[in-house]
């Protein structure tokens, strides 16, 4: 077997697509965790976002009341709102009510998993596809050999996801809001004493995390797969949480982790397609193994939020 057959341009393009939902969700989770909130419910929120976005587009398109781009925009908005609401609920439960985050997150996950499927069954029935975000063809760029296929033939949400990476890094490291987030996640007492509202910051990040998780879901249901089915995300939200740890809470490294994981996944599919004789089980296992191995050898610069999972209450 030839290496050229394995490392094709399409594998790289495939990795970029696969990484998209992880990047959205993991960036959102990075915000939440940086402020001290571990949201294990990401997968459930993704599902709700995926369904919300899908359903909005489905309705708009079947009713034909809207121009295509508007319908898609509506889908994105609905996903953001649904995700934001789920994030708000998570924030209320874990910040205001100080519930243990490990459990409340699992509760949110179950709720999202169940409700998205229920609504889908009641309102839609069987899987139906929508016309999702089309692949964009850029003049000239798309036609560049190899590079064009890898980078310049994706749908809009893919680009949004990757654009969010430096933006998130900027917000976290270079803005007053980001400073508050980092302080609140490290030493909420100190932030509080400096007049930063721990509650408000954590609400904000958890809601942002929810919105991005919702968008992650929508990137599947109205951009990459263009339909909804029960448990559409197949546990991607949990992998996204893991990737936050992989990246040591730094957006760039988190995205790098998402890319590595997705790349190995794309690679294993390619290797199977071209007929390599390795057991499927090991092929499917590969991204997980390599992600761990990579972290073993990576130099770990971490920005561990020490107050992670710890509800804040003044010492009264």
């Amino acid at each position, binding site marked *: 077997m030839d290496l050229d057959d394995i490392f094709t341009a399409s594998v790289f393009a495939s990795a970029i697509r696969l990484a998209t939902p992880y990047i959205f969700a993991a960036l959102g989770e990075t915000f939440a965790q940086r402020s001290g909130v571990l949201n294990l419910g990401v997968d459930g929120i993704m599902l709700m976002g995926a369904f919300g976005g899908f359903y909005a587009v489905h309705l708009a398109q079947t009713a034909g009341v809207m121009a295509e781009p508007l319908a898609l925009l509506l889908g994105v908005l609905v996903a953001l709102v649904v995700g934001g609401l789920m994030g708000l609920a998570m924030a209320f439960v874990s910040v205001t009510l100080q*519930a243990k985050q*490990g459990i409340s997150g699992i509760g949110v996950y179950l709720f999202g998993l169940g*409700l998205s*499927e229920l609504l889908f069954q009641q309102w839609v029935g069987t899987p139906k596809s929508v016309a999702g975000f089309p692949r964009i063809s850029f003049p000239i760029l798309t036609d560049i050999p190899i590079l064009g296929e890898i980078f310049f033939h994706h749908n809009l949400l893919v680009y949004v996801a990757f654009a969010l990476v430096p933006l998130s890094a900027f917000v976290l490291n270079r803005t007053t809001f980001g400073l508050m987030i980092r302080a609140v996640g490290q030493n909420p007492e100190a932030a509080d004493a400096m007049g930063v509202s721990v509650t408000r910051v954590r609400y904000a990040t958890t809601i942002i995390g929810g919105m991005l998780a919702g968008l992650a879901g929508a990137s599947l249901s109205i951009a990459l797969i263009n339909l909804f089915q029960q448990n559409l995300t197949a546990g991607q939200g949990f992998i996204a949480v893991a990737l936050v740890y992989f990246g040591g809470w730094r957006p760039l490294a988190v995205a790098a982790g998402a890319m590595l994981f997705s790349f190995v996944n794309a690679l294993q599919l390619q290797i199977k397609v071209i007929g390599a004789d390795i057991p499927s089980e090991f092929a499917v296992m590969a991204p*997980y193994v390599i992600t761990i191995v990579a972290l073993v050898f990576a130099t770990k610069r971490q920005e561990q939020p020490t107050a992670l999972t710890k509800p804040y209450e003044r010492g009264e």
Partner: protein
Amino acid sequence: MNQAVGTSLAARLNRLVDFAPVLVALLLALLVSSVLLVALNADPLAAFGFMLEGAVGTENATAETLVKATPILFVGIGITIAFRGGMINIGGEGQMIAGALAGTTIALALGDARVPAEMAKAPGAFDLVIVASALGGGFLAGALYGGLAGFLKAYFGVNEILSTIMLNQIAVQMMNFLLNGLLLDPAVAGFNNIPKTARLVTAAQLPRLALPLGDPWVFARTRLHWGLVIAIALAVVIYIFLWRTSLGYRIRAVGENERAASYAGIHVKRQMMLAMFLAGGFAGLAGVVQVLGLQYRLQTDGSPAGFTAAAGFNGIVAALFGGLNPIGAIPASAFFGGLLVGAQKMQREIGVPASLITAVNGLIVVFVVSSEIFILQRSKRRVSLQETPLAPARASAKRADSPDPADEPTAEEAG
């Protein structure tokens, strides 16, 4: 004193009232769920009636609740150890699978070796050697798998949340691979069956559990098995281990404060690995007990939950609900088991989709865990009202001229 009786009764009532928030939370969760039910044209009252009935309504229901709770409890005990050692173990699923793979292999091999073919299906041929070896092997395999995450954390700084989530997937693929090959039931090889091992001989099975409380014995015709007893006994053992032994102390010390622990001469890395080793071991036990006590063979539908019934995750919930105390994990897993089993009954009886059940379970988990703050606040308030302030030591200290104890403010004055 009469008054003393009065106060202790009041105190006890007070403590009972503590659980009121949980009940209120449950009711609220059910109320919200009712909205969903009504939207589906179902009668919420009847629905929740079925839920309760399904959880504890009959002998069989109660048994099923306990059967469901058993692996959750095993995992919950392990998660408790891990958390106490400062390790967040999301790897219960994978460790269960590791334990089940090893335990089943041992049970099958020893079953072949120790039980003559003609006896293999004879009832009551319980063989302690086989069962104990399988349980031990399951524990060890789970422990090594969990310990791997501990090792990676201790020596390579690989975050355990990341590694355990990844190791779960790896374990599933390992299981799929082995069950479809090496461990495949020879009787069905070549038939394209679902990947599964051969069935355990009776001697290798955990016996069913019944209580001599009537005739026939209670639970005699249910699937309740000795796994529950083992789990409860181990919960007590681990309680003692954590709070009464020096090794347990070391694990907790590392979990609370690594720096102070290393100052105290505790080998921090070793405790991390040990905590994960034990946590994995208990998850491994959960896995092997599911096979030996319930399913009698290991099979896979390709996903982890098909085998583990998500006990690896639910154990986290049980451990946290149980206040990270192995004894507390017992009622917590029973509650959770009842919730899961009862919900299934509700689905069956009123014919709502399974997804509704999942959503309702999520609501209940969220509401109940949110109610804890109200319990906490009540108990805090009580402490501040009841206890006398400042150190008793002070009054009795050997300072000749220590202030008159009467000088100290007392609760009465304060309150």
